[in-house]
């Protein structure tokens, strides 16, 4: 008895000890349980697709282990990104598995913004939306449906357009990347699309503030050109950056020049002055292809000054130097280097156009390309072709729809060129107009409550809209105010197309395809729209006769198969081979069957056409004169009416020259290359080390010059309020020697760890270029206060 009890106690003790040891090693020491996904060996696949995180749309390759996406790398077949990716692209896996994803369609049950949701089925959700749209149309108010679409790539854009058109609503509000350059091209070349830049073959890239290596149309395109051809058989492109701050692009360009904010256009014309004075420009090209260079006598016999006289009279280097702050010698040497380079090209981006005289300044910058004849030739500005997709089914518009369309958009553009900021304009109109003018608002890839310049206006607008539907896959600020959430699939789970941006002159039609099984609670918005269209029946259903978005894509790809040029993506050798063939006017079909073509296009990640015929005159100008217009008549007309007394090539400097006593520092918002646009949920890999400063993690920061910090009496790392006349936000002050003393550089896309937004765009003064309505991003002045 005694001994059994002792044995029992021993056994108990031993068990307890072993449990204890297990506990210490499992709970106290070891990594968490080993039974979780990461540990099964699994079978791996590599799948090509495209990145949809920013407008660049690089080629990606997913490593999929047992239907889990474990890594994203570049698709080496993609001609623009060539196997490289930017950090945001790599961090895409953290979007796919983001904890903020919405797991099922939700119907609002509490007050708006209270975030009380009831999960419903997809049939129910689509039924509710369909019924609402049906009744709206039956009431004869199809225009009361509005769509705010942010980042809407490829055929998703066309699908939405077709949907709204056949439904009868003119209120498709696009809030996407508009850098205003399309307006410049329309005016000077009669080609209404943003320019492509043949950076790779350019010998010299003179960038006016364009954040080529950070947030440009396509950083990867710039990287490829910067890295130069493999094997050094060609000379690498030389990059020179003119910028208001010492950006990453400036840091890695071969040379850079600091400039006063708002004076890009003046510098461009100062360079033009040297080119003309020293006869460095391409006189033959100008004579053959350009009009507006020389003075002309107009119909009334009155002499009108041409570009040459305007520049020669007004942009002597000394004066330009005084305005821009760039030393005279530097202007001259920049001009010489630009002229002497084999293939110079001047790049102008949103940073030039988002200014009070943005359009004029952008024309000035582009005039350098015209002077050097760097248009429609290797290494210059190229107007590429769009991928020749088959159009969607012919849209059918019934009388009801026609009536809606005829009533016109709610907030049409008031300016002669460009679209300006259509989302803010729309919100303003809704907030000011009668309630019910918009009955149903669809939000696709849009989060205006976080991203728009004026949050209050959007709040008011949303209050006046009875029914709001968001397709966002994540809980974000605006989704919180929706009545119905129909969570979209992420780009790694869905079919879409991803054409490269205009900046890359060769058309690339990237395919986006599911890398993993779709989230069970989410559905492709394209499929949802098609389902609603079927439900609505009639003209809408007939305009969109597609079973799924995948079939829609496939139908459109038939256009590529039929076009007798281009190829499915391939390696560098295949690409060059195809290019040489097309140069000689040859084209051999790769596939007999469309199915095989489709399969290969999907497998390799898309389709491209590596050849542009630079001898094609239509690539140069499609104006009525057939020449490039340096002084476009439409511009002169517009200036006469809404120009507020401005003159082309004269008023290229942006207004606000300096701050006031109250707000002494100029706010320069900029985009951090490691952060995604606007308001996407933060990805931890990126937020942990977002910038150059080794000790900044997560926190929003601003940069000021050492002298400025000294004068203000702020030490490095002080928390400060950035205060403008329109708002304020909190950020950590970093002393950075690359900041000009009169500026505060403020990255956007950050928020405080507790979710508090830190959006410098909310501070902007709200002014805009009267010609394009593009908001001024660099004319706001602020002061710093200790927080």
């Amino acid at each position, binding site marked *: 008895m005694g001994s059994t009890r002792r044995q029992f106690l021993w056994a108990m003790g031993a068990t307890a000890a072993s449990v204890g040891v297990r506990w210490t090693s499992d709970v106290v020491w070891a990594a968490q349980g080993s039974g*979780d996904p990461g540990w099964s060996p699994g079978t791996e696949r590599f799948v090509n697709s495209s990145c949809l995180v920013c407008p660049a749309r690089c080629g990606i390759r997913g490593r999929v282990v047992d239907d889990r996406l474990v890594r994203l790398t570049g698709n080496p077949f993609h001609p623009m990104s060539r196997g490289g*990716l930017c*950090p945001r692209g790599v961090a895409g896996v953290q979007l796919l*598995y983001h904890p903020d994803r919405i797991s099922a369609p939700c119907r609002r049950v509490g007050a708006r913004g209270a975030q009380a949701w009831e999960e419903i089925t997809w049939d129910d959700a689509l039924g509710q939306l369909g019924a609402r749209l049906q009744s709206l149309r039956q009431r004869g108010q199809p225009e009361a449906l509005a769509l705010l679409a942010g980042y809407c790539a490829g055929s998703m854009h066309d699908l939405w357009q077709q949907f709204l058109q056949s439904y009868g609503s003119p209120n498709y509000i696009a809030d996407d990347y508009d850098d205003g350059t399309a307006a410049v091209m329309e005016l000077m070349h009669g080609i209404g699309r943003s320019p492509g830049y043949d950076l790779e073959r350019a010998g010299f890239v003179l960038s006016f503030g364009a954040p080529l*290596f950070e947030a440009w149309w396509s950083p990867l395109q710039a*990287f490829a050109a910067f*890295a130069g051809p493999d094997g050094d058989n060609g000379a690498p492109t030389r990059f020179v950056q003119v910028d208001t701050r010492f950006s990453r692009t400036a840091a*890695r360009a071969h040379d850079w020049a600091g*400039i006063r904010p708002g004076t890009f256009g003046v510098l461009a014309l100062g360079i033009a002055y040297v080119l003309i004075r020293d006869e460095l420009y391409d006189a033959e090209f100008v004579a053959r292809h350009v009009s507006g260079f020389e003075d002309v006598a107009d119909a009334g016999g009155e002499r009108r000054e041409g570009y040459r006289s305007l520049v020669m009279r007004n942009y002597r280097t000394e004066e330009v130097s005084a305005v821009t702050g760039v030393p005279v010698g530097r202007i001259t040497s920049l001009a010489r280097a630009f002229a002497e380079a084999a293939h110079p090209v001047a790049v102008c981006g949103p940073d030039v156009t988002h200014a009070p005289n943005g359009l004029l300044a952008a024309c000035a910058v582009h005039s350098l390309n015209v002077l050097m004849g760097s248009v429609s030739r290797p290494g210059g500005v190229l107007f590429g072709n769009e991928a020749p997709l088959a159009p969607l089914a012919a849209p059918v518009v019934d009388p009801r729809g026609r009536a809606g369309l005829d009533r016109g958009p709610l907030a049409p553009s008031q300016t002669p060129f460009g679209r300006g900021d259509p989302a803010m304009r729309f919100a303003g109109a809704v907030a000011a107009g009668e309630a019910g003018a918009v009955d149903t608002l669809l939000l696709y890839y849009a989060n205006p409550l976080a991203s728009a310049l004026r949050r209050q206006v959007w709040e008011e607008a949303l209050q006046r809209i009875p029914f709001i539907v968001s397709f966002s896959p994540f809980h974000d600020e605006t989704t919180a105010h929706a009545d119905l959430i129909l969570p979209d699939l992420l780009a790694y789970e869905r079919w879409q197309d991803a054409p490269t941006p205009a900046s890359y002159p060769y058309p690339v039609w990237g395919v986006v395809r599911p890398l993993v099984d779709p989230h069970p609670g989410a559905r492709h918005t394209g499929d949802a729209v098609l389902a609603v269209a079927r439900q609505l029946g009639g003209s809408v259903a007939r305009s969109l006769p597609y079973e799924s978005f995948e079939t829609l894509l496939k139908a459109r790809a038939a256009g590529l198969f039929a076009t007798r040029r281009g190829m499915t993506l391939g390696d560098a050798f295949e690409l060059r081979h195809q290019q040489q063939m097309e140069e000689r006017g040859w084209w051999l079909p790769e596939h007999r069957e469309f199915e095989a073509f489709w399969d290969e296009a999907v497998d390799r990640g898309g389709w491209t056409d590596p050849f542009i015929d630079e001898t094609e005159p239509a690539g140069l100008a499609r104006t009525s004169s057939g020449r490039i217009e340096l002084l476009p008549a439409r511009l002169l007309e517009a200036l006469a009416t809404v120009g507020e007394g401005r003159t082309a090539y004269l008023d290229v400097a942006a207004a606000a020259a300096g701050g006031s006593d109250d707000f002494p520092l100029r706010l320069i918002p900029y985009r951090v290359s490691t952060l995604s646009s606007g308001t996407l949920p933060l990805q931890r890999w990126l937020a942990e080390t977002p910038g150059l400063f080794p000790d900044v993690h997560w926190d929003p920061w601003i940069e000021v010059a*050492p002298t400025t910090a000294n004068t203000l009496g702020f030490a490095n790392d002080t928390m400060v309020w950035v205060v403008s006349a329109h708002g304020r936000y909190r950020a950590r002050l970093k002393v950075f020697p690359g900041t000009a003393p009169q500026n505060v550089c403020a990255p956007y896309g950050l928020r405080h760890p507790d979710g508090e937004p830190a959006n410098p765009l909310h501070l902007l003064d709200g002014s805009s270029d009267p010609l394009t309505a593009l908001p001024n991003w660099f004319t706001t002045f602020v002061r710093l206060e200790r927080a």
Partner: protein
Amino acid sequence: MTRWGMVIDLARCTGCAACEVACKSENNIPTVSPDQAEMGRATSWMRVMAEPKGAFPDTTLEFYPRPCMHCDNPPCIKVCPVRATYIDPEGIVGQIYPRCIGCRYCANACPYTVKYFNWYGPEWPESERQYRNPDVSVRAKGVIEKCTFCHHRLQKAREDARAQGRQLREEDYQPACAEICPTDAIVFGDLDNPTHRVAELKEDPRVMRLMEDLGTQPKVYYLRQRT
């Protein structure tokens, strides 16, 4: 003899930090909460360091992507009391996580500050477990970790080559950072194999190594800016 090494061309590096994120993704590097990061406990086996100089507008800036240097004469391994950090015959400096006692002596001995300590157990929320790389172990709390030259890829490449009955090729074994770099600034290979690009690049006149005077013999070479 194979000696794995890396050449990073500073004239090509744009400081984009894709290498940094690719390394985190490949090597199951856990993220930490914002306040932990603020405390200096974030882990990044590859970190793009930046050195700004001068005042606006005469500012210059140098980027230095910094992995472990895989020193040929590594001061870190000499001090480890338990041989938990070692240099293998092909020059890769590795860590034996299950043996490390967490004294952090090696971390102090490394002049390049590239050793990272697991102050807490790694947190793997359900969402983050999904994308863990099954080829790379997850480090427990209390041990040191650092860049491994993506050693697991070498093992895999070897197995594949063996299975196909052929020699290991240069492109078979490329670490994640070299693979992703959009400007091909990172070149990786066998320093002793004349057919590998690194062998040629390390003879470039622009070549330098960090703190060469310390005699650590790093196997990560940098090519200076062209002037």
